[in-house]
């Protein structure tokens, strides 16, 4: 989680889960407001003030559910507009091909913090990574996982969605040698302080590789994000969090340093920032890729 002085996205303060069981915990409105006020985010405070609370001071869970669904549905649509799943597939394809060459059997792609699972559903339904690929989406948010299951079911897309800790090996990892961990827009949520541990978990599980996509910070990313969130998103929280998430994103060098801090020499790492002097919407997210040595 980000430290108190780092800017927070509104959604970060609206949902809490028990770290052990993953069970949803009630969130006190006053606590949510205090966390945002502590980081000087007055606009975000105003957004949370509008959310109804129960008599005991906890945020109304139905209202919070509606916000989470609305924001993630808009995010999925934005992802489609900018072609994020295709961007991810273009980077993942060579990684999956390499896994195929190393041994026989299906390759499992696990989307960490998948939300509504839009990216994995697109990659699965279009066969973007070729045959013999199993897709699993994991998220700590039970609401989003249930929504992802329903959406996959509605379009008969064979992605498995699981509620729980994405890096818990018992949930989705059968064969680490054939497993690729991926994510999109998750790294900046984890934050600098916790990223070394996040990467270290990959080493402990000994997955064959990972490719975590996050926005590449820069002027055009900020400007593009602002424009796209103004024109394609209506939820005020979507606009707030979308613009902020771009500013929280880390440069490639910093990501590599944090990954090395967690993995030492266990994995070969790559992360290439895109050129920032002209707009490249098709490169709005770029991966940090790791290969087990």
């Amino acid at each position, binding site marked *: 989680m980000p430290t108190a002085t780092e800017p927070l996205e509104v959604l970060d303060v609206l949902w809490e889960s028990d770290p052990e069981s993953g069970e949803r915990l009630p969130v006190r409105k006053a606590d949510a407001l205090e966390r945002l006020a502590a980081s000087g985010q007055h606009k975000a405070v105003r957004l949370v003030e509008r959310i109804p609370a129960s008599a005991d001071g906890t945020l109304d869970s139905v209202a919070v*559910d*509606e916000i989470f*669904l*609305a924001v*993630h*549905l*808009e995010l*999925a*649509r*934005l992802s*489609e*507009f*900018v*072609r994020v799943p*295709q*961007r991810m597939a*273009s980077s993942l394809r060579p990684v999956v091909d390499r896994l195929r060459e190393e041994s026989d059997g299906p390759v499992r792609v696990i989307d960490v913090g998948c939300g*509504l699972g*839009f990216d994995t*559903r*697109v990659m699965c*339904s279009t066969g973007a990574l070729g045959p013999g690929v199993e897709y699993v989406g994991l998220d700590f948010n039970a*609401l989003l996982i*249930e*929504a992802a*299951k*329903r*959406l*996959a*079911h*509605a*379009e008969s*897309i064979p992605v*498995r969605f699981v509620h729980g800790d994405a890096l818990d090996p018992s949930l989705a990892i059968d064969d680490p040698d054939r497993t690729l961990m991926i994510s999109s827009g998750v790294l900046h949520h984890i934050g600098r302080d916790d990223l070394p541990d996040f990467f270290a978990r990959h080493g402990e599980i000994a997955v064959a590789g990972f490719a975590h996509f996050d926005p590449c910070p820069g002027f055009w990313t900020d400007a*593009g994000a602002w*424009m*796209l969130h*103004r*024109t*394609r*998103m*209506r939820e005020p929280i979507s606009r707030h969090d979308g613009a902020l998430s771009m500013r929280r994103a880390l440069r490639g060098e910093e990501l590599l340093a944090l990954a090395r801090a967690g993995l030492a020499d266990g994995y070969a790492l790559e992360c290439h920032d895109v050129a920032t002097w002209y*707009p*490249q*919407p*098709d490169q*709005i997210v770029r991966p940090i890729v790791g290969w087990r040595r």
Partner: protein
Amino acid sequence: MTSVIDIASWPLWDLDVGAWALLGALLVVVAQHGGTAGIHAAMGRDGLIDHRRSEWLGAVRGTVMLVALMGPVLVIWAVDAFSSAERLDVYLHANQALAAVYVPITVIAFTAFVLARVTPWQVRSNLNSVVLGTLELLRPWLAAAGMVAAAIVTRDATVAVIGALGVAAGLLVGPATRRRWYSRPVRLDDLGESPPSEP
């Protein structure tokens, strides 16, 4: 001065092909705006990969809303424009100014839209963001620019007022469509049935 009730006396029937074509082009631009506004109002609510159905429904609803909002403006326009050949001539000049602003923009948007669907994903991503996204952001200003151009060309206060009403009505189509059909928050049950539990 002709009677508005007497349709046969409207100077409209004396228009040449060019003027009709211009009027038709502007109507296409306006209708396209209604459909697009409706699609925008509907988007980001179904979560599906294939949402052509909800987009079609959004387009129809946006067009209906456009007719509802711009209908009264059209009636006011017709009463003034068809009152005499001179008044109609003023509006024909206004149409030329509107078309000079709106048609090129619509052609650019339409070309980008079509190209985005037949080119590789990288091109589509860039066209969507850089061209369509920018035009969407500028939509209110472009709409106002057309009206201002028409007012300047005609130097006619009535044209300016009716133009301003038309632009305002047009810009309200998206928000009104959302308010009428898409204001209810999405809930889990709107996203389909829960699949049977895995064994």
